[in-house]
C-alpha cells in the first residue's frame, strides 16, 4: 500500500513538473510591437506632430482596407476608441483630417502599416511649399514669394500633403516590418473581425502606444519653461534642432589671423571664394526613418563628386590666373527646417565669426564671395534649370559654360540646362542669402520637381532606382570618358550623378582657370555608386572605411540618419561628411610619415587600400543652430530665423493585448464589492455570537461577547 502511494505521489509530481514553468503574467498579456513614432516639433507659433497621453494611448485595432472601413469607424464605432491600421495609400491628408476631427474619444491611435504599398502612388508629408515662411519674402507678407501655395501643381512639392506640419491629438506609429504588421492583423482577425454588434460586450485586441511629449504650444513657451529653474532643478521640455554643417575649401586657405582676442577680427578682402553649397539633411514624419534619397541625397552626392573632381583636375592655386581665388564647399545641415544651417552661416558671416577663431584664419565675409552655386534637388536630370532672381551676365555666362559641356558630343552627356529667371526660385539654401540681399549673386541648379515621396519614409533606394554595383574597382581615380560607360548603362543613377557632377565641375574649372576643359577624364560613376551605397544602404561601406582612420570601428550596417536632430543626437551624417571631405577634397602628402601626420590640417586616413596615407585637409564643422537661439530676447514670432525645436520624450513603445470589455470590468468589481459586504455582515454576526457557536470555551469568555439581535 505504502509503495503504491509513493508511486502515485512520484507520478503526480512528475506530471506537474512536465506542465509547469515559471512565467510572468505580464508576458502572457502583452506583445511588444516594434515601430517608429511620430513626435512633436514646435516653432515660434505652432506645435506639430503627435503625442500620446501620459500613460499611453489605447485603441481597439481595426484594419482599414478601403475607405469604407474608415467611414464605419467614424460614423458608427461599436466600442470606441479605435486604432485604425492604415495602409500607405489611404494615409492621405483628407483621411487623416477626418480622423483628427473625430477626436481622441473615437480614434485614439493611428497605425501606419506596410501593406498594399504597391497601391500607393504618392506619399509626401511636406508642404506644397517647403520652408514656406522662411524663404525670400514678399514685401510685408510673412509668406514666401518664391512659391505659390494656392496652386499646388505649380508649387515646389506638388504632391505634398502637409501632414508633417499638422498637429495630431493621437499618436501615429509606423510599423515597417511586415511580420509585425502580420502579428497585428492576426490579432485583429482572431479577436475583433467578427460580430461587430457584440464588440462592446467582449474583450478586443487593442494596441497601446506610448509617445508622450513634454513640450507644448510653441517654442517660446517650451524654451521659457526649459530655462525656468526652481528649487527642484530644471525640467527639459524641448531642445532646439541643432546639428553641424560641414565645409571645406578646395585649396588650403592662406590667410592667417593673429590670435589675440583684443583686436577685432578683420576680413582679408584679397580672398575670393566661389561658394558651392547643398543640403545635408532630410526629414520625415517618423523618428529615425526616412533617407531622403531623391529629395536631398542626389544634390549632396553631386556636390561631393564635384569637389573631388575639381581637386584632381585643377592645377595648384598659384598657377591660376587669379591666385587668390578659392572654392568653398558647404553642406548645410537643418535646411529642411527653415534653413537652419544657411541662416546660421549668413548670420555668422555678417558678424565676422565664420570661420571660428580656432581655425586661426581670417573671417570670411560677403565681400569675399564671388558668387554662389547652390545645388538643389535633382529629381530629373534631363530637366535641370539654372535659377536666378534676375538676369545677370554672370548667370548667362555660367549657363553657357554648363551647356557647353552638357551638350558636348565629346562626353555624350546629352543634357540641356535651361535658364529660369524670376521670383519663383526653389526652396534651397540660396534663399537665406537672397533674403539678406536680393542682389546676392546666387545661381541655383534645380530640376523640375518630380519626387512624389519628398520628405517621406518612402524616399529610399527604391524611389531613386538605386542598385549597388559592388564592383570593388578603383572608385577614387578619375575615369576616361569611354571607360565610364562600361560599368553602368546610361540611365543608371550612378551615371546621372557622375554626369551632372562632371558638367558642374568642368564649368567651375573653366571659371577658375579661364580655359575650356578639354581633357578626357570625367567623374567616376563608381564613386557615386559607393557614396550612394553608404548613405542609402549601409554605413559599413568601402568609402566610409577609406575615409576613416585605419582600423577604426566601421559604421553600423544601416544607412546613417540624416535628420538634423538635437544637441547630443547621433550626428552621424555630418560626421561621415566631415571624413568624406577630408578624404575626397584633400591633397595627399606622400612624404609625411604617420608619426608626423597627427595634427590638423594633416590627417591620416585609411585610403582605398586601407594601408593609410597622410592628407592635407581643409574641412571643418560649423554649428547649425538657428541664430534665434543665440540672440538675447529674440522675438519668436518675428519669423526672421528658424525657431524649430523638438519636444523631449521619455520613451517610444507599442504593445498589443486584450482590452477587457466594460461588462467584464463591472462584473469583476461588482463581485468584489458583494464579497466584501457579505463578509463584513457575516463576520460581524459570527463574532458577536461566538459564545453560542463555540460553546465549549471557558466560561470567562462569555462575559465579553456583546448581545445581539439575530
Amino acid at each position, binding site marked *: 500500500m505504502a509503495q503504491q502511494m509513493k508511486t502515485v505521489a512520484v507520478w503526480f509530481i512528475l506530471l506537474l513538473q512536465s506542465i509547469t514553468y515559471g512565467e510572468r503574467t505580464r508576458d502572457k498579456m502583452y506583445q511588444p510591437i516594434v515601430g517608429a513614432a511620430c513626435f512633436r516639433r514646435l516653432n515660434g507659433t505652432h506645435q506639430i506632430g503627435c*503625442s500620446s497621453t*501620459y500613460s499611453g494611448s489605447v485603441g481597439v485595432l481595426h484594419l482599414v482596407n478601403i475607405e469604407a472601413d474608415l467611414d464605419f469607424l467614424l460614423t458608427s464605432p461599436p466600442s470606441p476608441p479605435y486604432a485604425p491600421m492604415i495602409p500607405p495609400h489611404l494615409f492621405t491628408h483628407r483621411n487623416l483630417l477626418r480622423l483628427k476631427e473625430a477626436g481622441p474619444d473615437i480614434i485614439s491611435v493611428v497605425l501606419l502599416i506596410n501593406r498594399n504599398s504597391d497601391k500607393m502612388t504618392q506619399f509626401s508629408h511636406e508642404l506644397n511649399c517647403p520652408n514656406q515662411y522662411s524663404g525670400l519674402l514678399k514685401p510685408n507678407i510673412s509668406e514666401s514669394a518664391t512659391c505659390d501655395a494656392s496652386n499646388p501643381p505649380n508649387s515646389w512639392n506638388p504632391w505634398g500633403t502637409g501632414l508633417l506640419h499638422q498637429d495630431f491629438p493621437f499618436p501615429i506609429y509606423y510599423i515597417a516590418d511586415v511580420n509585425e504588421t502580420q502579428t497585428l492583423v492576426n490579432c485583429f482577425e482572431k479577436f475583433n473581425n467578427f460580430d461587430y454588434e457584440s464588440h462592446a460586450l467582449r474583450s478586443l485586441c487593442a494596441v497601446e502606444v506610448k509617445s*508622450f*511629449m*513634454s*513640450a*507644448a*504650444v510653441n517654442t517660446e*513657451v517650451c524654451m*521659457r*519653461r526649459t530655462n*525656468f529653474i*526652481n*528649487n*527642484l532643478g530644471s*525640467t527639459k*521640455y524641448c531642445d532646439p534642432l541643432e546639428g553641424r554643417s560641414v565645409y571645406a575649401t578646395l585649396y588650403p586657405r592662406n590667410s592667417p589671423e593673429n590670435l589675440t582676442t583684443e583686436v577685432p577680427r578683420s576680413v582679408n578682402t584679397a580672398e575670393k571664394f566661389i561658394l558651392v553649397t547643398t543640403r545635408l539633411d532630410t526629414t520625415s514624419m517618423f523618428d529615425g526613418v526616412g533617407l531622403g534619397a531623391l529629395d536631398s541625397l542626389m544634390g549632396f552626392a553631386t556636390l561631393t563628386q564635384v569637389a573631388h573632381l575639381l581637386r584632381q583636375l585643377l592645377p595648384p592655386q598659384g598657377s591660376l590666373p587669379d591666385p587668390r581665388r578659392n572654392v568653398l564647399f558647404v553642406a548645410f545641415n537643418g535646411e529642411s527646417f527653415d534653413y537652419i544651417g544657411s541662416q546660421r552661416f549668413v548670420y555668422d558671416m555678417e558678424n565676422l565669426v565664420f570661420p571660428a577663431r580656432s581655425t586661426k584664419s581670417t573671417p570670411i565675409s560677403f565681400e569675399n564671395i564671388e558668387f554662389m552655386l547652390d545645388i538643389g534637388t535633382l529629381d530629373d536630370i534631363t530637366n535641370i534649370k539654372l535659377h536666378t532672381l534676375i538676369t545677370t551676365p554672370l548667370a548667362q555666362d555660367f549657363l553657357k559654360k554648363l551647356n557647353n559641356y552638357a551638350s558636348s558630343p565629346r562626353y555624350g552627356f546629352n543634357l540641356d540646362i535651361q535658364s529660369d529667371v524670376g521670383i519663383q526660385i526653389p526652396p534651397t539654401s540660396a534663399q537665406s542669402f537672397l533674403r539678406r540681399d536680393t542682389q546676392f549673386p546666387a545661381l541655383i541648379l534645380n530640376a523640375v520637381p518630380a519626387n512624389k515621396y519628398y520628405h517621406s519614409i518612402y524616399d529610399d533606394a527604391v524611389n531613386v532606382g538605386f542598385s549597388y554595383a559592388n564592383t570593388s574597382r578603383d572608385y577614387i581615380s578619375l575615369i576616361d570618358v569611354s571607360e565610364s560607360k562600361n560599368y553602368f548603362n546610361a540611365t543608371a543613377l550612378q551615371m546621372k550623378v557622375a554626369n551632372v557632377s562632371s558638367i558642374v565641375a568642368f564649368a567651375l574649372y573653366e571659371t577658375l582657370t579661364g580655359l575650356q576643359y578639354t581633357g578626357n577624364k570625367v567623374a567616376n560613376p563608381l564613386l557615386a555608386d559607393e557614396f550612394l551605397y553608404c548613405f542609402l544602404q549601409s554605413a559599413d561601406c568601402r568609402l566610409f572605411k577609406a575615409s576613416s582612420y585605419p582600423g577604426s570601428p566601421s559604421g553600423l550596417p544601416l544607412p546613417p540618419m540624416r535628420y538634423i536632430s538635437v544637441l547630443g543626437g547621433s550626428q552621424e551624417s555630418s560626421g561621415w561628411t566631415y571624413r568624406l571631405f577630408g578624404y575626397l577634397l584633400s591633397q595627399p602628402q606622400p612624404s609625411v610619415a604617420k608619426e608626423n601626420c597627427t595634427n590638423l590640417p594633416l590627417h591620416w586616413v585609411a585610403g582605398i587600400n586601407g594601408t593609410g596615407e597622410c592628407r592635407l585637409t581643409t574641412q571643418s564643422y560649423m554649428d547649425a543652430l538657428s541664430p534665434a537661439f543665440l540672440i538675447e530676447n529674440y522675438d519668436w514670432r518675428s519669423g526672421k530665423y528658424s525657431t524649430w525645436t523638438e*519636444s523631449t520624450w521619455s520613451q517610444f513603445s507599442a504593445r498589443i493585448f486584450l482590452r477587457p470589455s466594460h461588462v467584464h470590468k463591472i462584473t469583476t468589481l461588482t463581485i468584489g464589492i458583494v464579497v466584501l459586504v457579505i463578509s463584513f455582515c457575516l463576520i460581524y454576526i459570527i463574532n458577536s455570537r461566538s459564545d453560542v457557536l463555540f460553546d465549549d470555551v471557558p466560561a470567562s469568555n462569555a462575559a465579553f461577547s456583546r448581545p445581539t439581535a439575530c
Partner: protein
Amino acid sequence: MDISKAPNPRKLQLCRTYFLTGFAFLPFVWAINVCWFFNEALRKPPFPEQSQIKRYVLYSAIGTLIWLIILINWIIIFQTNRADWGATADYMSFIIPLGSA
C-alpha cells in the same frame, strides 16, 4: 499632548497662542485651533476661561472660513486661466504640467 489634562489657564494660553500664530498667514493653525478647542469651548461644563476660549475658537473658525473661500476662489481662477495667462502663470507655478499649454 492631551488637552484634557491641562489646567484651564494653560488651555486659554494655548488657544490664544494658536489664534495669534494664525495671523502669520497660517490658516491651518486656526483650523487646528478650532478642532482642538471645540469641545473645551462649547461642550465642556462652564469654567472661568471658557468665554475667552470660545471667542478665540470662533474667530479662528471665521479666519479659517475666510481663508478657505479665498483659496478655493484662487485655485478655481488660477486653474481655469493658467493657459491664458501664459508666461505670468508659468512664473507663478512651481510644477508646470508636461505636454499641455
